[in-house]
């Protein structure tokens, strides 16, 4: 018999999509049964009380959570979100319900040994509920009490070799797309760069020293599967500088209908016979392709690497060989001046494709990290210039994108030591209100009125 009646939530158990209500009920039942005889460190009816308080919100249309004050683990400024409910008498199981952010592994690959061990900790010390994953990327352990926080941290670090993620005004847990581990479009090893920067900047991640939050995200190519361009202060997007690699025989196989277009992504509807002219050449946004005597010609100099043709014919076309990343800066959600997307700042930082030694090629991780420090030196140098500027000029709670908006793109380019180029803008300015610097104007601004008067009488 359920502890609380939940007629509204019960209506979310039907329908095909996995029901979180059924899952919470399942966990409530597991805990009530307690087959393993655990001495649960959270009240064993925590899941029932969560359903109860959620049902109340469904009824009265308002949240019943209060801000959690400052809870955390010793020495870290983030990783824990404090939370208390505003009806602790009715729902004692969730009176305190803090979340723990656990840093997710690259590409979100797991072994079951790892997940089971994590679940053992969370079974004993938490609500038995999680988010796989939070929107920044972390594993979110949903709901525990203050005394459990240090214990969980101790077990994570000592028994699992696993750290917390970031929250607060610091570097947030970086996140990557699946990248070259399973995607042929990837122009760099997203997992490697993500891991390298995460480890290099552990201090920035755990100890708030920034004006506000700061996010890195890594997309292996311009398809942008982790949406870095919209969700990260520094967005790394894989790209290439030379020619798209074309296999004409495979192009022919697409034209002849022998290979399914788009890797099968459009199979569900009859769109008619594949038409390379209509679907690829005419849709190329730069009009830089042509079919000449049955061969696909690309004027690569004009290509903006939008990925369309490659997505349509993945067997025939591959990104070029001179690969690297574009870095865009300043994306953020709308608070407060409106949403911003990343602005292109570093069009291309080449990543040496011959530097491809893996961790297993080294004695230990430190040596590998040193190797990577050299490989990615141009990137870390840039990151640190950005942080220097932001930490010097950023106001409290001012995201990088807002600072860029406030002080202008010119200033930003100057501070991060990038030569202004036409690729930095969609089009040049439409007003002539150019604020010249004095040293740019011949003779400066200091003038003598008497000199002037010699030619112009009063």
């Amino acid at each position, binding site marked *: 018999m359920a502890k609380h009646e939940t007629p509204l939530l019960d209506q*979310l158990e039907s329908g095909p999509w996995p029901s979180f209500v059924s899952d919470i009920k399942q966990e409530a039942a597991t805990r009530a049964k307690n087959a393993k005889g655990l001495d649960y460190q959270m009240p064993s009816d925590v899941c029932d009380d969560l359903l109860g308080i959620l049902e109340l919100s469904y009824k009265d249309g308002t949240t019943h959570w209060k801000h959690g004050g400052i809870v955390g683990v010793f020495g870290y400024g983030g990783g824990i979100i404090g939370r208390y409910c505003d009806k602790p008498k009715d729902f004692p199981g969730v009176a305190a319900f803090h979340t723990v952010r656990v840093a997710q592994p690259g590409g979100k690959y797991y072994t079951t040994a790892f997940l089971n061990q994590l679940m053992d900790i969370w079974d004993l010390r938490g609500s038995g509920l999680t988010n796989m994953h939070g929107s920044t990327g972390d594993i979110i352990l949903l709901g525990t009490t203050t005394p459990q926080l240090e214990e969980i941290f101790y077990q994570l670090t000592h028994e699992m070799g696993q750290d917390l993620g970031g929250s607060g005004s610091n570097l947030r847990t970086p996140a990557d797309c699946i990248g070259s581990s399973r995607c042929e479009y990837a122009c760099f090893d997203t997992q490697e760069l993500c891991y390298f920067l995460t480890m290099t900047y552990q201090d920035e991640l755990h100890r708030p020293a920034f004006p506000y939050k700061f996010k890195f995200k890594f997309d292996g190519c311009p398809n942008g599967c982790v949406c870095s361009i919209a969700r990260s202060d520094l967005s790394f997007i894989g790209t290439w500088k030379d020619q798209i690699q074309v296999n004409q025989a495979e192009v022919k196989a697409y034209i002849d209908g022998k290979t399914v277009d788009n890797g*099968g992504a459009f199979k569900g509807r009859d769109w008619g016979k594949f038409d390379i002219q209509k679907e690829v050449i005419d849709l190329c946004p730069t009009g830089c392709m042509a079919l000449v005597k049955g061969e696909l010609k690309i004027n690569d100099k004009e290509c903006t690497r939008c990925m369309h043709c490659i997505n349509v014919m993945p067997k025939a076309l591959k990104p070029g060989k001179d690969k690297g990343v574009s870095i865009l800066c300043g994306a953020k959600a709308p608070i407060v001046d409106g949403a911003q997307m990343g602005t292109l700042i570093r069009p291309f930082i080449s990543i040496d494709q011959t530097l491809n030694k893996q961790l297993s090629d080294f004695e230990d991780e430190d040596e590998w990290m040193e190797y990577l420090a050299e490989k990615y030196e141009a990137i870390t140098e840039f990151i640190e210039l950005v942080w220097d500027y932001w930490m010097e000029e950023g106001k409290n709670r001012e995201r990088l994108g807002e600072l860029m908006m406030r002080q202008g793109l010119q200033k930003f380019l100057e501070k991060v030591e990038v030569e202004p180029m036409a690729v930095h803008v969609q089009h040049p300015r439409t007003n002539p209100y150019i604020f010249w610097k004095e040293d740019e104007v011949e003779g400066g601004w200091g003038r003598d009125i008497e000199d002037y008067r010699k030619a112009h009488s009063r």
Partner: protein
Amino acid sequence: MAFISAGYNPDKPMEGRITDIGPKHYDSFYPEVIKKNKGKWSHHEILEPGVLVHVGESGDEVFTVRCGGARLMSVTHIREICEIADKHCDGHVRFTTRNNIEFMVTSKDKMNALKADLAQRKFDGGSMKFPIGGTGSGISNIVHTQGWIHCHTPATDASGTVKATMDTVFEDFQSMKMPAKLKISMACCLNMCGAVHCSDIAILGYHRKPPILDHEYLDKVCEVPLAVASCPTAAIRPSKVELPNGTTVNSVAVKNERCMYCGNCYTMCPSMPLSDKEGDGIVLMAGGKVSNRISAPKFSKVVVAFLPNEAPRWDNMTVAIKKMINAYSNGANKYERLGDWAERIGWERFFEVCDLEFTHHLIDDFRDAAYHTWRQSTLFKF
């Protein structure tokens, strides 16, 4: 309950403390076939909705079965995922950015056994535990936030609106007949932890009433300067208030017409609660994208200014979403994302074919960027 110590000594927190070790290295989690072929994949094909094969230059194949998941998952459910991964995938599993679960195997036979196993697993309430889908030109899982499950500033629930929406579009999760990918995201207040501002369709919780002021307690539990500073629109100023009992207290005043209902003040000060049954509800946005394919990434636009919270199934919200999806599916060309389609036919036509009402709320009036959204031409459709 007896407190069980893991070994941590509160008197000596620094003793043997391990910090700054980051996440586990990904190498230790890769399935064998991934480790071997990383960086050397030749191509891929989606065999059927939710099922992909990636082929390495070596000729190796990896078959991936992608399943939807509620991002809120219990320990019991995760243990079941592990059991499946142990049985079929040598103990490996991964999650996607959109909260899907991916099981990988190395042969067609194993893939068929895996699919059959997944398809028959159901929750007691009847819903599927591991629906297969979410690939190609269909509708994948929704990225979302916490809502009434955990946060203090939501204007709606996240898990419930997502469940209701995914049930409504479920057929398109399991098929690939859209003109292009269609991404839905959900955030439960305008802080947008889900960063929904670049999605084909975005569900957003929105408050419409400024905070209520608990004057008697405000100065006792909050620092007035912090509350004042928290407001992004400078709507809050310090003020002295006389309580009904005659005493005067330090408190704040809110200039209601400047308030954008963001809840930042409530985060700083528990004496400024925001949520309200009538005030709170849903905003729908549409036409954003983040991919660079064919056209540049773009922001979503507000297309429905407000819908009330109709828990538990938000019927009017799912109806409006469905109307947009149908109109798009019928009208767009192959490869055209929802926003590209809306721009081609014109937003005036978008409202007509989606059968959505255009109201004055949808005209931008927020600071001077608004100007750029007005029409400065005679090129419009009747």
